[in-house]
Structure formats: structure tokens, C-alpha cells
């Protein structure tokens, strides 16, 4: 095979078949995928959770992960947040002509490893190669399907006054890693993406605590955006206690340098859990036993006041709104 991706490899002909066999089957192969039918034959019973997501991250490799592992973790987590056990993924690749074959293999291998860890199978896929300049290196779409095991399923509509709001760990790690890497910035201490599949942790939570009202992974837009969505979906207010919100020193320092707010930065391995306050301690215990929930904290509560709004109680006892961002976060200019 050539060391660069060629248009031939998206043609559906022999070159495509060789690519599928030598790269995709090698790292993602399983009996369902290997049948090579037009569709995957799977046998699952409902209710089902289905989610789709496209991944266009720049840079494609970053400390703590890459576009491949992210494409698995991201969709696995979206499915898991509905109280479901993710089972199968499909993946579609759009690759720019001239992309390095070694990088593609590295990405696909990383997807295989991430799927193995999450205990999901990639059962269908597609590859398109587009002319140089018409896409930025590589884009990946993954669709996930999972069996809902929670009854009722957690949902953004189910937050109620009196619920506690828990976060599973520090915020902003992924967002700052990608942003600083993109800008060629380095900090004294290394910053690393938290990219991980949370489905094993969510399963432990919903099995032990059927009263979980909401599970949400605060990805794009960060904690602030996710909580605003929940407040609006459930028509409740949320009050957060700023000193309780965990942010690592390196992320805090990096954000201060760049004029960014860690509460709006993306996370790829964190979950928000909203459940009645009386179960909060139990939820914390379960989370803290899992490596992905070691730094779990109660960070606030759901209230009846100011429905649809999130209010932050600052360290000195003042209050301010924590709204959604209009666009991207911008660096400070003075």
C-alpha cells in the first residue's frame, strides 16, 4: 500500500478493499463487521438509545487521545447518558487525499483499543476519500446504539428542585489541551485530555441508584452550557457553589493566561449526575471508587427559583449568572 491515501482508496474497487482489509479489519474486525454485507445484522431488543456525532478535531493527535479514540468515547458516552448499555457503533470516514497512511492506521488502532475498553463493537463502516483541499485531513462520524437499562431513562427533562448536582471530576482538561496544542502553547505542567468512555461508570450508578434523574456529559460548551440546557429542559433553576467546582491548577493557570473560562471548555471524560439530594453521598461513593470518578464533587443544587437559569455563588458570597456563550470563547485582548 502507498504511504499516502489516494483517491483510488475511496473508489469502492480493489484499492478500497485492500485498505479495508489491511487497516480497518486489522484493528476493528469482529464477526459482524467481517461479513461485509451492505448492512450489519444485529439482534437487540428495545428500548434503545441511538446517538450520532461527527468528529473534526484539530489537532488530530493531542496529549491524552486522538480523533479516533475521541470518536469512540464521544458516542459511547452520549448513548450511556441515557442510562443505556452501549453495544454497537458504526463509523464513517472522510479522508483528504494525501493523508498519511501511518496516521490513518494509528487513528484506527486507537479506535479499536477504545472500543475494546468500552466493550462495544464497530459493526459497520464507510470510507470516502475527497480531493486534496476539500476536507481538513480526516473527519470521522460515529453512530452508537445501546440498550436502555434504566427505567425510567435519565433525561435532561427530569431535574427537580431538591436534586443535587454532581460532577465526576475536574473541568476543562480536554478543551484546554486541544486549544493550547492548536496554538502551540505549552504550560509548566503538562495538560492532558480527559478523553474516556464513561459507560462502565454510568452502569454502576444506574444499577445502584435507579433514582438518577439526569446524566449528561459536558462536552462542547462545557459544564455551563450543559447545565443551562438541563435548567431549560426541566424548567428549573440551578445554583452552583463556585469553590466546590473542581478545576486542576494547570487548567486554571492556562485559562487565566488565555482569558478563558474553564466552565465553558469541553470535557470528554466527565459526567454530570443530577439526583435527589438524599442519594448524593451514595452516588459520590460509587463514583470515587472508579478511576474516572476519583475527584467527584457535589457542586450545586436544583431549585425552583429562576427557571431555566444557572446562578453561580462565588467564593466571596456574591452571585452571578452563568449563561450560555453566544459564540466561541475568545482570548482576552487587554
Amino acid at each position: 500500500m502507498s504511504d499516502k491515501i489516494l483517491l483510488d482508496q475511496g473508489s469502492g474497487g480493489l484499492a478500497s478493499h485492500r485498505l479495508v482489509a489491511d487497516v480497518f479489519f486489522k484493528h476493528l474486525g469482529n464477526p459482524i463487521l467481517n461479513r461485509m454485507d451492505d448492512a450489519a445484522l444485529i439482534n437487540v431488543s428495545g428500548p434503545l438509545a441511538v446517538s450520532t456525532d461527527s468528529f473534526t478535531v484539530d489537532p488530530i493527535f493531542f496529549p491524552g487521545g486522538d480523533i479516533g479514540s475521541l470518536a469512540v468515547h464521544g458516542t459511547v458516552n452520549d448513548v450511556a447518558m441515557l442510562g443505556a448499555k452501549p453495544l454497537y457503533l458504526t463509523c464513517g470516514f472522510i479522508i483528504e487525499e494525501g493523508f498519511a497512511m501511518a496516521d490513518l492506521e494509528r487513528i484506527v488502532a486507537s479506535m479499536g483499543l477504545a472500543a475494546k475498553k468500552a466493550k462495544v463493537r464497530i459493526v459497520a463502516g464507510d470510507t470516502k476519500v475527497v480531493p486534496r483541499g476539500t476536507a481538513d485531513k480526516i473527519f470521522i462520524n460515529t453512530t452508537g446504539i445501546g440498550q436502555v437499562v434504566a427505567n425510567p431513562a435519565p433525561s435532561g427533562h427530569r431535574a427537580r428542585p431538591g436534586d443535587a448536582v454532581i460532577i465526576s471530576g475536574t473541568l476543562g482538561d480536554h478543551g484546554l489541551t486541544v486549544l493550547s496544542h492548536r496554538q502551540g502553547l505549552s504550560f509548566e505542567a503538562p495538560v492532558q485530555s480527559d478523553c474516556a468512555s464513561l459507560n462502565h461508570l454510568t452502569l454502576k450508578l444506574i444499577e445502584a441508584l435507579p433514582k438518577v434523574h439526569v446524566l449528561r456529559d459536558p462536552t462542547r460548551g462545557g459544564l455551563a452550557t450543559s447545565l443551562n440546557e438541563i435548567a431549560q429542559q426541566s424548567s428549573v433553576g440551578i445554583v452552583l457553589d463556585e469553590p466546590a467546582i473542581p478545576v486542576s491548577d494547570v487548567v486554571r493557570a492556562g485559562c487565566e493566561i488565555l482569558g478563558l473560562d474553564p466552565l465553558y471548555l469541553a470535557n470528554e471524560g466527565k459526567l454530570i449526575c443530577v439526583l435527589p439530594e438524599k442519594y448524593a453521598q451514595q452516588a459520590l461513593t460509587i463514583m470515587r471508587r472508579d478511576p474516572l470518578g476519583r475527584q467527584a464533587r457535589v457542586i450545586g443544587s436544583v431549585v425552583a427559583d429562576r427557571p431555566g437559569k444557572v446562578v453561580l455563588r462565588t467564593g466571596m458570597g456574591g452571585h452571578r449568572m452563568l449563561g450560555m456563550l453566544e459564540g466561541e470563547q475568545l482570548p482576552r485582548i487587554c
Partner: protein
Amino acid sequence: MTSSDPLRDPARCKELLVQIEESVKGSSLRFMEVCGTHTVALFRSGVHSLLPKSVVHLTGPGCPVCVTHESEVAAYLELAGRSGVIIATFGDLMRVPGPGGASLKKAHAEGARVEVVYSPFDALAIARDNPGDKVVFLGIGFETTTPTVAATVRIARQEGLSNFLVMPFHKLVPPALDALLSDPDMAVEGFMLPGHVSAIIGMEPYRPLAERYHVPAVVAGFEPVDLLQAILLMTEMKRQGKPKVINNYKRVVADEGNPKARAIVAEVYKPVDALWRGIGTIPGSGLGFTDAYRAFDAFEVLGVELKASKPLPGCRCGEVLKGIMRPDECPLFGKACTPAQPVGPCMVSTEGSCAAYFKYQLDLNTDR
């Protein structure tokens, strides 16, 4: 977000708030901050929500995006999309509305080459990588950012890079304060002075505030304790009738400022009259290229001129910037003018007073 930082110590903040409350008893005071980072810090820390009702903290012309004049916006939008021109800008300018609803964001969507940069050095790199194009850096900002831009221009000259140009929209704080205090409509009784700007210019330029205008002023840092100390110092000076200019940010600001940075600026730029949104022309409040560096002036090289422009209809940003009107007192605020559909620049910039009010204020028109 826990912090063992004494500058964020809640107990110390409470103490200062009690002292402020006692100091203002029986009077009401109107202070103004003239730095966008202070605007945001006052809200984000919660200080704004905790001040006694009798202390009104207004937002002055301290956001570089907000004070960029309509005609300056029109000038750079004229260049966006011109063949062979790449605009390099800080991100905050991307959404600023210009004539007919144009903006850099829209121009980019229509194919203009616009690059968001974190520093002018990034713009220089773009110029090196694109020798066949003119790279125009939009030089907005106060004394804080100007030395870096001047240093970049100097490097461009050393390297013989003739395709790196700057639109010098730089603004100077002391002349603006002077203009504000000369305005009979102004009723500000104390200034919280910018920390980053003062680190460059030092304390000397502020002397007239106390001597000529008898207004107390405090150079402040950005932590909650910094902000409250500055407010307390202003209330005390007001109560005692002894206005002074105090440097309360000595850990960063030397009284003499940063002479080296000023020297670089003086080599590249000279003071010129400048247009400020909502205020108009303020003599000596801007910077233009010295003769030695005229080859880097985008206006001159690309034949662009500032043209008289109509203010945005209904926009009251000017009155907000002068502290005559609170953002939520503007009839457009939160209705016709929101961060999603900004009419004026104070709603666009992350450091704009209207954007800060919209984003952080709990209950507009009821809370302060």
C-alpha cells in the same frame, strides 16, 4: 474552585465590604472602572452583586473593541475581501457590526481571508508564509497591547518584510480620562484605574486626575480583594475630601511603569488625534506611525481612508461608555440588542459593559 489565595479570601472580602458600607454611610457614590478586564472581574467575582446600593459602579471606555469607532470598523471591512489581502485580528473584532450589518465573520463566510490570532507575532508568521499577499493586522487596544505590536513592526522592518501592515487603531487611556472629566455631563466621583495599562505607563500620567479634577483614583489589580480595596480607598478619599492617585497594585505596577516598552512604542508610533466611539475625536489619544515606519501603515500603503460614518441607529453605546447611562437603561438592551444580534459594540465584545451586564447580572433592572 477552591483557592488559598489571600487575594480571594472570602473572610477578607467580607471585612472590606463592611468597611465600604461604613465609609459610604449617608452618601451615594458613582465610581467608574476604565478597563474591560475590571468590568468582567467585578461581575465574575460577585463583587458587583455585593456592593451597597449607594455605590454605583459604572463602566467607562475601557474595552478596546467598544471604543473602536464606526469609521474604523468600516475601514477594515473595506479591506476584508480585497484581493491579495489577509486580515489578521484578535477574535473580539470578528462580530462587531459595521455598515449595513457587515462584519468580519460575515466577510469570512463570503470568502474573505480573515485569520484570528492570539498575538501580532502570529500575524507576522502569516506574512512570512504568504509573501505574495499583504497581511493587515488590526491594531486595536490600549497601552497594554501596543508595545507588542510596535515590537512586531520593528521585527518586520529588521526582516525586510514589506507585506506586514498594521491598521493603527491604538488608543491611549489618559487623554480619554481627561476628555471624560472635561465633559459637563459626567458625574463620576472616582476612577478604578486599569492595572495592565498602568504597568506600561506608570503613575505620572494620572496626576491631573487628583490635581486638576479633584477626583480620587486607584490603580487596581483584578482579584476580589484588589477590587474591594480600590473601592474602599475611593470611598475613604471621597469622605475625607482628599483626592489622590494611589497605586494599589504595586506587585505588578511600578510607579515609573515600563520605560523599555514605552521606548519601543515611541520609536514606532507618535501620538495623533483619534476617534472614539460615542465620544468623538480626542486630541492626542491615538497613535500613528512615525516617518521611519510609514511603510507599515496599512492606510497609506493600501490607500484606505477613514470616512465619516453614520452612527448605528438607536445605539447608545456612547452614553454607556461615558457612564451617563447604565447598560440596562438603554432602550435597546436585551431587546433589539443582545449578544446574538448585537446593535452596538458594547454588546459584542467579551469585555463590553453591555455584554457583561447581559451575561452576569441576575435580575436586570431590579438588582444593581
